């Protein structure tokens, strides 16, 4: 982190969760009505080829997750945390609750209650999700953990936690969700430590030799994010409108004055529709990303505005076999202005990026064996990402799994193509209690 040393330490970091913990501690222990669950999950993974910038092992970790739910009269208090031993990091003691580093990762610590009959409030650390895509996100600008996703941790880890106030209102006209994050919750982005990536400044693949340590947006109540959703039934479908005020979630900008990557301002507006169509489920979603620092698209250090669109359809194609297909489009605004500023036009992004996805899920042996394949394929980038996985439920406690993340691409500089050397296979086991 390249902010002024000590500056962040002055701010009580887990401020809201801390208050909740204090409130909980004040409750007499005998009055607590608590449920405790969790799991121990061990995984190991290897790269399927040599990566000059990364370790041969892609994953080697054991985690204990404890999940407690306490009923406090009309309110519920949830605490869910992971205790992690990661054999691939050198500094086990360094805990960073923002990017998930270290032996302790707080997933949830929140209080949920209804201030009035027609509203709910969830305050504290929580996982937030909305939108209609399957592993594609347009209006869900809540933080994602791309490292976990690409390295083959459980899919739940794709969602990184937010420290937020989540308020919902339910008037007759529809439902409103309003989310306030007093300090930006960035993606746990690909930074080169565990996954190599295309570095546009170097015009080359990079990894541990060029770790991105972006300027954090860490000023409380200034570097804040606001996300809103309105949803209601519409012609037999579920319709939703979205708005977001905050930042690009991964450090897509570059600040030449300090020579570092940062999170430029972003507003987003969108809409979605989802519901049954024929014997399946259809969805469509669109969004406009207003890159507020570069509306003309001329600043080469700030991403241009974009329009994004997707449509999908899922249905059962045979007994215990489900298929889901999606089309996804990113359309860069002011592409000519963007091209004028890139270091090399050959490696520049296209104006249109098209992606097709296909999910196949087959359930066998009384649903105890689940085989899945999720494929991303971009005809415009000429690259693809395959996610095969197998999960076997040995009994009510034990699960075994195998999965792979395989990337291929014609070029090193495309979205999936850049990860080719990170292709990996994983094995794991989980004991749930």
């Amino acid at each position: 982190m390249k902010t002024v040393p000590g500056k962040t330490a002055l701010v009580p970091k887990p401020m809201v969760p801390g208050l909740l913990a204090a409130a909980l501690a004040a409750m007499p222990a005998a009055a607590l009505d608590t449920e405790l669950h969790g799991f121990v999950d061990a995984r190991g993974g290897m790269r399927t080829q040599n990566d000059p910038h990364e370790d041969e092992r892609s994953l080697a970790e054991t985690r204990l997750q404890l999940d407690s739910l306490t009923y406090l009269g009309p309110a519920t208090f949830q605490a869910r945390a992971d205790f992690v031993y990661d054999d691939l990091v050198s500094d086990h003691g360094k805990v960073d609750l923002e990017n998930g580093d270290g032996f302790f990762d707080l997933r949830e610590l929140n209080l949920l209650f209804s201030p009035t009959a027609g509203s709910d409030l969830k305050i504290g650390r929580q996982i937030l999700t909305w939108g209609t895509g399957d592993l594609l996100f347009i209006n869900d600008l809540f933080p994602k953990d791309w490292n976990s996703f690409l390295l083959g941790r459980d899919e739940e880890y794709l969602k990184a936690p937010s420290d937020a106030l989540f308020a919902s209102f339910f008037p007759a006209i529809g439902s409103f969700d309003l989310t306030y994050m007093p300090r930006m919750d960035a993606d746990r982005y690909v930074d080169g430590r565990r996954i190599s990536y295309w570095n546009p400044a170097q015009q080359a693949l990079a990894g541990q030799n060029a770790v991105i340590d972006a300027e954090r947006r860490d000023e409380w109540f200034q570097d804040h994010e606001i996300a809103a959703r309105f949803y209601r039934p519409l012609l037999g479908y579920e319709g939703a409108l979205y708005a977001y005020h905050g930042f690009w979630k991964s450090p897509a900008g570059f600040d030449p004055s300090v020579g570092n990557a940062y999170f430029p301002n972003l507003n987003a507006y969108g809409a979605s529709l989802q519901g049954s169509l024929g014997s399946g489920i259809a969805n469509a979603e669109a969004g406009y990303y207003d890159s507020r620092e570069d509306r003309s698209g001329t600043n080469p250090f700030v991403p241009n505005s974009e329009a994004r669109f997707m449509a999908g359809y899922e249905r059962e194609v045979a007994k215990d076999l489900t298929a889901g297909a999606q089309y996804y489009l990113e359309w860069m605004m002011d592409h000519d202005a963007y091209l004028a500023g890139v270091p090399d036009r050959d490696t520049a992004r296209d104006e249109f990026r098209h992606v097709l996805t296909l999910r196949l899920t087959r359930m066998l042996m009384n649903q105890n064996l689940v085989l899945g394949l999720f494929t991303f394929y971009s005809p415009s980038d000429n690259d693809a990402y395959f996610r095969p996985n197998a999960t076997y439920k040995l009994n009510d406690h034990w699960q075994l799994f195998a999965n792979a993340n395989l990337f291929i691409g014609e070029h090193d500089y495309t979205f999936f193509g850049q990860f080719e050397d990170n292709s990996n296979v994983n094995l794991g086991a989980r004991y749930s209690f």
Partner: protein
Amino acid sequence: MEKWIAALAAIAATTVACAEPSVDDIVNKANEAAYYTGDDGRAEVEMTITDGKGGTRTRKFTILRKDTEGGNQKFYVYFKEPADLYKQVFLVWKETADGKDDSRWMWLPALNLKRSIAPGDKRTSFVGSDFVYEDVSGRNLKEDEHELVESTDTQYVVKNTPKKPGDVEFSYYTVRIDKETFLPRKAEYYDKNGKLYRIVEATRVETIQGFPTVTESVVKDLNTGGSTVNAFSNVQYDIGLDENIFTERFLRRPPREVTK
């Protein structure tokens, strides 16, 4: 005198024949008794799945049901066990009108995600058990042709033949319906070769709030040798459930009716 007796017997026979309800009445009443008791209901379910090799798995969940207009219903199923299903919710809006499919969703708490389930095949296994989704919310009566094939002292036997045989794995099934309570007591499914392969049986019936209620049911799959037992406890009817419980709001915030 004998004439009188014969006449009376004839009248009695006619009366009995008239008292024998039509097959549509029988299946309607059986459907009411099995799935529409009271205006709403709640039950805790312990499901024990035994596979063909004797291995067992257990699921515990609470189920809420509310009847809405036109025979439609809403179901809220909150899982407590096993640990990997803990806090997941299965939500169903059952639609009985022609050409309308049920809406089904799963709530995945770790992802904070409401996932729609494709309406498709309702005869897939419910959470890995020998019960299928359709056993949980009830098969739409309009899907089958019904025929009264037998009437014993205590039971009606109704044969049900699917109107769209391609949509289901059975060629027909028979249901034995209790004459007194109209509860379906035993259903036997026959495959496309006419062989019995699946039996669903109500193995315990208790009267709760005046309603005869199945408190234990068993399904046996004769092909795999597997079976599943559902044991119902703390059954309550007419508890005044708010229809709002069956919406996204209460997926995010499971109501006390299921968590307590």
